[in-house]
């Protein structure tokens, strides 16, 4: 298959960026999107030109590195998948494909298709944990957890921290990301002691990092490669209000 790529090239956060056109030729329909870019990059490297910078690592949709907006959609067409799980058979032969980074004020650009998502780490550092030191934990089975709660906690815990939810949101909100962690821990008995303190700290950090607010468009859920439900945002809001009122 052959494609025409329109790729966002930007040297660094201070330089201006622009779309640059590259042909991608003789691509197997079974290639993943990342493998297709690697073919283009090998060609560029052999000509001594600067290859397209991008992040991708595990290539099986779990590390959360890939951060490409393809034809206007974070991670491209196809639901419940990351860029590295997207295969070229999802595109038409001869198609023009537009590739940009995940754009958000809270994700400063590093280069080309790579952004700095350490704002997500700072949200977790503010409270996305249970304060338990190594050692001293009680026997694992001394805390029975109803299977339904464990399953719902797991559904939320699947977040890979890629940032598609932010890139897909017109407000650049990180509500789905933050809520997934808040809800995971709020569902579990282990998470109760810090439940309200946690939600306040995480939401405040989220606001301070420059993320926007939720206006219930649910674009985040639509583009989330792990299909995390927006219901967790409602759960986070409820806990946040409770925490603020009870203070």
């Amino acid at each position: 298959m052959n494609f025409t790529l329109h790729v966002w090239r930007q040297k660094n956060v201070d330089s201006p960026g622009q779309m640059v056109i590259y042909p991608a030729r003789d691509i197997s329909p079974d290639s993943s999107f990342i493998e297709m870019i690697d073919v283009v990059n090998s060609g560029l490297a052999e000509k001594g030109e600067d290859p397209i910078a991008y992040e991708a690592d595990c290539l099986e949709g779990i590390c959360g590195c890939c951060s490409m907006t393809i034809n206007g959609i974070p991670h491209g067409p196809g639901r419940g998948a990351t860029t590295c799980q997207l295969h070229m058979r999802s595109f038409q032969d001869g198609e023009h494909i537009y590739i940009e980074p995940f754009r958000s004020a809270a994700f400063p650009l590093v280069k080309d298709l790579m952004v700095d998502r350490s704002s997500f780490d700072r949200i977790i550092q503010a409270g996305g944990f249970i304060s338990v030191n190594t050692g001293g934990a009680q026997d694992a089975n001394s805390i029975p957890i109803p299977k339904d709660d464990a399953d719902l906690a797991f559904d939320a815990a699947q977040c890979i921290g890629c940032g598609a939810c932010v890139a897909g949101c017109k407000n650049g909100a990180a509500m789905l990301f933050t809520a997934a962690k808040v809800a995971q821990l709020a569902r579990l008995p282990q998470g109760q002691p810090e439940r309200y303190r946690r939600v306040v700290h995480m939401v405040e950090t989220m606001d301070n990092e420059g993320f926007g607010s939720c206006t219930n468009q649910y674009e985040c859920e639509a583009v989330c490669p792990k299909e995390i439900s927006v219901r967790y945002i409602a759960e986070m809001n409820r806990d946040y209000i409770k925490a603020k009122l009870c203070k």
Partner: protein
Amino acid sequence: MELDSKIPSGPIADKWTKHRFEMKLVNPANKRKYDVIVVGTGLAGGSAAATLAELGYNVHAFCFHGSPRRAHSIAAQGGINAAKNYPNDGDSIHRLFYDTVKGGDFRSREANVHRLAEVSVNIIDQCVAQGVPFAREYGGLLDNRSFGGAQVSRTFYARGQTGQQLLLGAYSALSRQIGLGKVRMHVFKEMLDLVVVDGHAKGIITRDLRTGKIESHAAHAVVLATGGYSTVFFLSTNAKGCNVTAGYRAHRRGAAFANPCYTQIHPTCIPQHGDHQAKLTLMSESLRNDGRVWVPKKPNDPRRARDIPEAERDYYLERKYPSFGNLAPRDIASRSAKEACDNGLGVGSSKRGVYLDFRDSISRLGKDAISARYGNLFDMYQRITDENPYEVPMRIYPAPHYTMGGLWVDYNLMSTIPGLFVIGEANFSDHGANRLGASALMQGLADGYFVLPYTIGDYLARIPSTPITAGSEHAAAASEVTKQTEKLLSIDGKRSVDSFHRELGMLMLDKCGMARNEQRLKEAIEQIPAIREEFWENVSVPGSGAELNQQLEKAGRVADYLEFAELMCRDALMRNESCGGHFREEYQTADGEALRDDENYCFAGAWEYTGKGNSPKLHREPLVFENVPLAIRSYK
């Protein structure tokens, strides 16, 4: 170089307890005077950095990703072993110890393995306390499943994403310490050299991947948790960024590298589909709990799987290993698949594949039950191959997956360089010549949460706590790193870095892969230097060193692989026996099983670097089996 394993005396079950008492402690008020560098923030490094900070040390953690949550531990699917015996099926610490020693084909260190089995139970407690959402029964208690190489159900799991959930647990503990200011996290920084001062590890040199700045970092001790080297084969189940650079550069500074030829080829991966493929995808071994492996009895059978009647299928694992069946250990399952394909029985367009069939489990348990167990894996398979595994059998083939070899460490996890500790997949000690499924997560977390935090104290308590800063040794190492970077950028050749990596990988897979022999290993030892020479004359690394330059990053890693691969082949050639993942065609039984030579090769082979262009020197650590008698490893 002397290899002193420092195994404590006394009965195996008491060694660790006794040793913990005998080790020196650092006074709580003094701990903050010690700086510790932890390189790598996967399961081992993340858990170690968090735990050391909780204890009070000043920790500097480094990763080359933009966040510690991206380490490749995250991709582990199946589960984590622990001798909890919750299912009441006869498990015990001793049985987990026994299974792991036997699974490793008697090439691991008994004392380390026993300690691993002992602390396995604490890991589960710790992770549950952190909020890791393990699978549960309706009664609210934890669920277990069985895994290859064991006849008890001791594997804890979180759907097919156990590694992700455990890593996020360690990451949350680490994040808490970063938030408290006890860990300084350095992201986008790649370690490019180890600094040794007066024989002790005292720091590292890193390159900031965003700005290209070469930086020196000083500390009282250095911990490497930098994973394995399966990407030496180019195509493997590992993430693209996995590499041997940190370990290999420490090796060049004096750390012995043990058993580099022990590599694990995982039996259940999606077969290769084309020449531009960047990696192979693993399908969790847990699938073998309910899937049956088979090939057609007739070579080159053109029929679709569904049209081949029962009598014309060879369920070869069930036939050859009736007591373990489809749950035979990885090395055995992989070799059997290769053998079937070598005999022309392979399936799929490349003929390098065997079936993993769920038809019988689906009719026995129903589609919903199978979907609840493996839903995400089935989806992943369908997404990649465009085939529905609920309808047609999966096609699988072995792929490089894990490396049991690594930097040599003593019982305290310290390398041959005092002050340099190595944990997780990066060290060599616990899995011998073959790792059992669900044991990598166990070892990474055992080292990071429960072993290193004790043993590093014993080292630190013996050295002064005076503040440490970068000195002339740091400056010299940094200037070497700068020189190599400049050299790579100046070659201006015609071939991409990937093309060299791919060429090396194909060579290694062919000559030092699932089956090896003397002649092919010797050919590899001749051919690798030629590729290396061409690399240094004809590689193209565009751009500059003063910016983000991913080709430059890769070039440095491939340059190290071009040296390391030769060491692997030398190790494989030296070991005139077959054991675990190391299968030498000359050494096999009449029915094709691995033939060990305990008389001559019951040792860990640790290689000393003797300078550029010189042959490495072999040191032997004898392995003594007092608790699990040396026996032929049979799964029949």
